[in-house]
C-alpha cells in the first residue's frame, strides 16, 4: 500500500482491529466493514456502545450504515472531494493538532521553487511529460535536497521507488542527514508544505463537496465537525477503509487523502486513532509482505528493473536511504540472497545480483492478460484465484486464458477459470468453441486450510499460525507441496544443464524436510528461513537490526525477522487474551515489525516523551529506566531519548532525531506531502473516474492523467460527460461483496449453507430509477456497458439513494455484487464482465468501484444475440474503437505544451 507507505513508512494498517474500541469517532469510508469483516466489526460496535460516533460515508446504505450513528451517501468515486473538503475545513477553521503537525509531519518543510500545483496548471502537477504520459518528479522535491549525483544516476535514483516498493517508505529519500534542508517551524513560508496544502485545497468548500459528492452541506459539515471534535490531545478518531478506495484510478490518492486528514488531526500512532486498512483475504497482507507480486522481493525490496539498475552498486545507491531504517538496505538484500542461494551467493559474485531477472514498469496481472490476448504468454499457473470471475472484464480474462498453450489451475472446486473452455458466456455465444481452443489444462485439487500447517498474515500485520487438523484426501495437496516438488522436479531436469540460463535456478537453496506419506514439506522449516539465522552459529535472529550486509546472516524476509526468535514459532503463540495484561495481547501470535501492534507509536507521546493525555496513554519515555515503555512494543529504538539530536554525519536510524516517530522515513516524519514514491502527484487531487457521467468541476483535466489505459479491442470504454452517446450508459455502477459470499465465489458458492442465503445474482436500484426504466422488484434486469451485458434479479430499495449533484442533476447508482459465475451450487452472471481494465498508476488496480452502465427490464439476450446486442449499443454510443477515438483533455494538452 504505497499510500500508507509513502505517508508513514510502512505499507500496512497503522493500527489493529481491537484498538478501534478506544476510538471516540470512527469514519468508515470505502469499506462495508459490517458485511465484509463482520467479526472485526465487533470492535466498532464496542466503540459505539462506549459512546463513540460511527460515521459511514458510502455510495450505498449497507449493513454498516445500519449500524452507524450517521450515514452520508456520496457518489461513487468522489471520495477525494469529500476528504479534501475535510482537509480544507480543518485548515480554514484551525481545527488541526498544531503541536503534532509541527513536530511529527513534514508540514514545515519547504518545497522546491520549481514545483507547481494543480491549481496553477489546471489539474496537472509540474513535471508532466505529455509524450511519456508521466511525471518527472524532480520539481516535487524538498528545497535544497541533494539530488543523487549526476544526471545519469539521478534517473536511477529517483524513479526507483514505485508501486509496492514505495509501499514501504520512500527508500531513496535523498536526504543526506535526518533533517530536511529547509524548514519553517512557523509554517508561514509560502512554499512550506502546510501552506501548499492550504492553497491546494482552498476550493474544496462544503458547497463544492455537496455538489460534487451529492450529499448536503449539513451532512458534510456534521462529519467534519464530529471528526475534528473527537481528535486532539484527549480524543482520537480512526479511519477504516477497504477496496472501496483501492479499486479506483485514484485509489492510492484516496487513501493518501485520509492519511493527510489523520496527520493534521494528530491521529496516527495513537490508541483509538490510525488508519485501519481492511484487507479482503486471509493472507493478502502476507502476500504483499512476502510478495507474489512482480515488482518486489520479500520485505518490499524492489525487483531489479530492466532500465534502471546497471549493477549491484546502482541498485544499492538507488534504494539505500542514508537516513532511517532503509539505511540498512544492503543488509536486507544480502540476507535475502543468502536465503535464496546460500553459499552460491557471495560478495565476489555480487550476491548473484547480475543474474536476477529484471522487470519492466508494468508486468502486473492486467499487463499479463494483455500479453495473453496478444498470444505472447504461453504458460500460466493459477493457485487459489479465479480471474474468470474475480478480475475486471471477465471476457478479456477468459479469452486470454483460451489463448495459452498450457494452464495449471489449483483449487478446491472446479472454478470458472478452469472450466471456461466448455462452460462460459463465450462458449454460450459461440465466440469460443472447445474444439478450437488449444489450451492444455491441468486441474489439480488443492488442500484446504485444515489440511496443512502454515501462517496467515491478517489485516493488522499479525502472523497467525494454523495447524493441520486432517490429512488431505486423494490428490489434494497444499501449495507448499506443489511448488516444492515442482521446484525439485525442475532442478532434477536441469541438473546437468550447462546453460547460463539455468545457473540461477540451479543455485537455489531448495532443501526442506518433508513428512507424512505424501512428503509434505515442513512449513515451519520455511518459516525458519523467512525469520533467518546467523550462518556461522545457526542461531535464529531475533529482529532485523541483527541483519548483516557481509553475508554472515540469512533472512527470507527482513520485516518478518523475529517471528521465529529463539527457535520458537512466535506466530503459533496462542495465549488466551484473558490471560494477558492488556487488550493489545502481544503474546498472541506475532505482528510485524518486531511484534508492534500500533506502529509509529512513539507518536502517542508528545515530543518530550510524555503521553499527550492520560486518557490516551500508550507508549511513553520512562526517565528512570531510560527507555521507552507502555502497552505495546515501542516502535522506536528502545533507549533513544526523546530529545536525541543526531550528530553530523550520523547515518541510518542514528540520523533520526528522538522527536521523530516515523522511523522508516528518511526524515523521520510522516508525509503530508509526498515528494517521491507516487506516480500521480505529491498531493491527492479530485479527478473523475475514468468512466463518469460528470466533468471535473475543478479542472479541464477530467480524470487522473496518469491512469493506465490499454489499446485492447476487448476493452472498449463508455463515452463520458460531454461526449456523444453518454446517454446510452447514463448510470453510475459500483460493485461489491455480500456477507454471505466471498469474492469470486469459489469458496462460498460451493457451500450449501451459504448458497441458500444468497442464491442469485441481483442488482440494487432505487424506486425512482425502477420507475424511470420500468424495473420491478423480484423481476429481471439487463445491465450493459461497452464490454458486455449481464442479467440480474432486481432488488428495488431506498438504500440506493439517488444523489442531487451540481446544477440540480440527479445521479442514479446501480449496485452489483460480483460473486456469481457459471459454476458452483448457485450460478449467475458476473458483474466483472461489465468492468473495464483501466488502472491506478501506482499499484495497477482496476477501477471497478465506479464506472457507467445502462439498465433495462428483462433478461439478457441469449447465445450469439448477446455480443450483437452489446455491439449495437456500443455503436449507438459512438464508443471508442468503433468510432474516432475519444480525445482526452490530457491528449489535447500533448499537442499544446503547458
Amino acid at each position, binding site marked *: 500500500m504505497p499510500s500508507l507507505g509513502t505517508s508513514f513508512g510502512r505499507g500496512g494498517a497503522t493500527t489493529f482491529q481491537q484498538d478501534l474500541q478506544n476510538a471516540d469517532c470512527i469514519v468508515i469510508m470505502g469499506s462495508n466493514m459490517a458485511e465484509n469483516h463482520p467479526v472485526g466489526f465487533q470492535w466498532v460496535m464496542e466503540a459505539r456502545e462506549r459512546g463513540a460516533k460511527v460515521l459511514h460515508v458510502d455510495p450505498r446504505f449497507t449493513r454498516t450504515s445500519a449500524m452507524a450513528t450517521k450515514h452520508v451517501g456520496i457518489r461513487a468515486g468522489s471520495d477525494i472531494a469529500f476528504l479534501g473538503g475535510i482537509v480544507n475545513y480543518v485548515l480554514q477553521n484551525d481545527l488541526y493538532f498544531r503541536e503534532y503537525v509541527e513536530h511529527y509531519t513534514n508540514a514545515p518543510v519547504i518545497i522546491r521553487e520549481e514545483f507547481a500545483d494543480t491549481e496553477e496548471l489546471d489539474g496537472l502537477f509540474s513535471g508532466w511529460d505529455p509524450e511519456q504520459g508521466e511525471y518527472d518528479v524532480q520539481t516535487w522535491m524538498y528545497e535544497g535536497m541533494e539530488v543523487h549525483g549526476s544526471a545519469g544516476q539521478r534517473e536511477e535514483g529517483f524513479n526507483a521507488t514505485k508501486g509496492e516498493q514505495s509501499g514501504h517508505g520512500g527508500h531513496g529519500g535523498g536526504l543526506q542527514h535526518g533533517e530536511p534542508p529547509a524548514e519553517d517551524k512557523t509554517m508561514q513560508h509560502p512554499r512550506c508544505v502546510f501552506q501548499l496544502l492550504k492553497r491546494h485545497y482552498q476550493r474544496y468548500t462544503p458547497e463544492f463537496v455537496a455538489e460534487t459528492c451529492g450529499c448536503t452541506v449539513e451532512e458534510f459539515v456534521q462529519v467534519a465537525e464530529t471528526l475534528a471534535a473527537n481528535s486532539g490531545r484527549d480524543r482520537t478518531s480512526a479511519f477504516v477503509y477497504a477496496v472501496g478506495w483501492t479499486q479506483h484510478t485514484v485509489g492510492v490518492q484516496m487513501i493518501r487523502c485520509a492519511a493527510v486528514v489523520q496527520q493534521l488531526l494528530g491521529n496516527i500512532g495513537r490508541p483509538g486513532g490510525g488508519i485501519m486498512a481492511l484487507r479482503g483475504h486471509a493472507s493478502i497482507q502476507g502476500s504483499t509482505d512476502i510478495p507474489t507480486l512482480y515488482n518486489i522481493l520479500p520485505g518490499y525490496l524492489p525487483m531489479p528493473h530492466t532500465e534502471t539498475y546497471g549493477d549491484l552498486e546502482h541498485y544499492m545507491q538507488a534504494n539505500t536511504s542514508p537516513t532511517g531504517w532503509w539505511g540498512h538496505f544492503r543488509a536486507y538484500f544480502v540476507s535475502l540472497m543468502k536465503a535464496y542461494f546460500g553459499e552460491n551467493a557471495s560478495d565476489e559474485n555480487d550476491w548473484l545480483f547480475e543474474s536476477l531477472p529484471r522487470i519492466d514498469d508494468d508486468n502486473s496481472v492486467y499487463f499479463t492478460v494483455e500479453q495473453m490476448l496478444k498470444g505472447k504468454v504461453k504458460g500460466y499457473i493459477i493457485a487459489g484465484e479465479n480471474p474468470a470471475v474475480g478480475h475486471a472484464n471477465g471476457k478479456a480474462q477468459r479469452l486470454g486464458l483460451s489463448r495459452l498453450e498450457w494452464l495449471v489451475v489449483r483449487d478446491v472446486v472446479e472454478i470458472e477459470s478452469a472450466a471456461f473452455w466448455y462452460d462460459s458466456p463465450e462458449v454460450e455465444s459461440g465466440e469460443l468453441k472447445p474444439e478450437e481452443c488449444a489450451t492444455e489444462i491441468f486441474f489439480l485439487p488443492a488442500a484446504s486450510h485444515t489440511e496443512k500447517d502454515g501462517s496467515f498474515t491478517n489485516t493488522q500485520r499479525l502472523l497467525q499460525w494454523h495447524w493441520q*487438523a486432517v490429512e488431505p484426501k486423494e490428490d489434494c495437496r497444499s501449495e507448499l507441496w506443489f511448488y516444492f516438488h515442482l521446484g525439485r522436479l525442475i532442478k532434477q531436469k536441469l541438473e546437468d544443464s550447462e546453460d547460463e540460463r539455468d545457473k*540461477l535456478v540451479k543455485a537455489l537453496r531448495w532443501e526442506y524436510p518433508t513428512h507424512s506419506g505424501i512428503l509434505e514439506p515442513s512449513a515451519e522449516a520455511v518459516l525458519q528461513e523467512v525469520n533467518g539465522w546467523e550462518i556461522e552459529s545457526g542461531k535464529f535472529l531475533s529482529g532485523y537490526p541483527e541483519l548483516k550486509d557481509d553475508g554472515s546472516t540469512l533472512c527470507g524476509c527482513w520485516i518478518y525477522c523475529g517471528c521465529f526468535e529463539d527457535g520458537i514459532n512466535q506466530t503459533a503463540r496462542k495465549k488466551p487474551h484473558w490471560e494477558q495484561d492488556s487488550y493489545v495481547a502481544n503474546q498472541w501470535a506475532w505482528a510485524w515489525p518486531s511484534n508492534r501492534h500500533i506502529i509509529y507509536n512513539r507518536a502517542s507521546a508528545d515530543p518530550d516523551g510524555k503521553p499527550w493525555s492520560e486518557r490516551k496513554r500508550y507508549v511513553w519515555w520512562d526517565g528512570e529506566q531510560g527507555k521507552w515503555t507502555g502497552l505495546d512494543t515501542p516502535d522506536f529504538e528502545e533507549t533513544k531519548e526523546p530529545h536525541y539530536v543526531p550528530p553530523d554525519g550520523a547515518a541510518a536510524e542514528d540520523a533520526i532525531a528522538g522527536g521523530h516517530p516515523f522511523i522508516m522515513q528518511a526524515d523521520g516524519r510522516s508525509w503530508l506531502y509526498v515528494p517521491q514514491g507516487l506516480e500521480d502527484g505529491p498531493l491527492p487531487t479530485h479527478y473523475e473516474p475514468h468512466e463518469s457521467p460528470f466533468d471535473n468541476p475543478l479542472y479541464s483535466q477530467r480524470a487522473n492523467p496518469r491512469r493506465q489505459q490499454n489499446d485492447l479491442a476487448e476493452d472498449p470504454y463508455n463515452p463520458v460527460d460531454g461526449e456523444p452517446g453518454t446517454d446510452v450508459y447514463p448510470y453510475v455502477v459500483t460493485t461489491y461483496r455480500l456477507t454471505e459470499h466471498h469474492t469470486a465465489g469459489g469458496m462460498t458458492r460451493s457451500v450449501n449453507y451459504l448458497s441458500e442465503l444468497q442464491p442469485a445474482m441481483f442488482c440494487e436500484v432505487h424506486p425512482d430509477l425502477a420507475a424511470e426504466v420500468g424495473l420491478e422488484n423480484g423481476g429481471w434486469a439487463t445491465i450493459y456497458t461497452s464490454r458486455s451485458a449481464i442479467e440480474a434479479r432486481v432488488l428495488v430499495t431506498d438504500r440506493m439513494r439517488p444523489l442531487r449533484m451540481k446544477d440540480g442533476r440527479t445521479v442514479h447508482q446501480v449496485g452489483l455484487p460480483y460473486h456469481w459465475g457459471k459454476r458452483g451450487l448457485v450460478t449467475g452472471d458476473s458483474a466483472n464482465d461489465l468492468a473495464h481494465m483501466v488502472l491506478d498508476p501506482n499499484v495497477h488496480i482496476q477501477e471497478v468501484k465506479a464506472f457507467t452502465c445502462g439498465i433495462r427490464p428483462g433478461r439478457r439476450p441469449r447465445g450469439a444475440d448477446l455480443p450483437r446486442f452489446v455491439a449495437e449499443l456500443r455503436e449507438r454510443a459512438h464508443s471508442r474503437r468503433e468510432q474516432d477515438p475519444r480525445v482526452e483533455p490530457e491528449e489535447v494538452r500533448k499537442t499544446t505544451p503547458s
Partner: protein
Amino acid sequence: MPLAKLLESWPALRQLREGDPLGLGKAVQSPRSQSLVPRIDEAEHVVQSVCPYCAVGCGQLVYVKDGEITQIEGDPASPISRGRLCPKGQASKSYAQSPIREYKVKYRRPYGTEWEELSLEDAMEMIAERIVKTRAETWEWETEDGNPANRTMAIGNLGGATLDNEENYLIKKLMTGLGIVQVENQARI
C-alpha cells in the same frame, strides 16, 4: 425386554412415579435424550486454526474424529475474534467437505472436449516439462533496447492472497530462480 421392565420404562407410569403428572418433562424423556453427549466432547483431538476467508483472522477450533472434521467453531482464546465467527467462517467445515469438492487431478488436452483422468505424478512431471520447455524457448537475456532482462515473459503465476506465507515464499523464490517475473496475486485486485 421382560414385561416388568417394559412397564417400568413406560412414560405413562413414570408420569405418576416421577412427579410429572402432566407428562411434560422428566417422565417423557427418552433414553437417547437422557444420554445425549455433544459431538465436540467426543472429538479425538482439537486443533487451533485460523479462518481462511477474509483478513480479520478469526481463531478457529477444528474438532476431529476418525480422521474427519466433525465441527469447526470459533476459538474463544483469540483476542481478535473472541470465539465469534461470521457465516463464512462458520461454514468452513462445509467448505472443506463441499459436495462439489474435487479430489482427483483433471486433464484437458488441447482441443479436447472433455476432462480426462491423470495421475498426480504424471501431472507434476508434465507441468515441470512444460515450464522447462517454454522457458527455454522464450528466454530473453536482453530487452529490445539492449537492457539486461534474464527472464521469460511467456510464463506467469497468479495467486497468493489466500495462501500461507510459507507457500508464497516458495512461489516467489522458485519463480525468481526461474526468471519468471509475472508473479501476481489478488492483492493487485
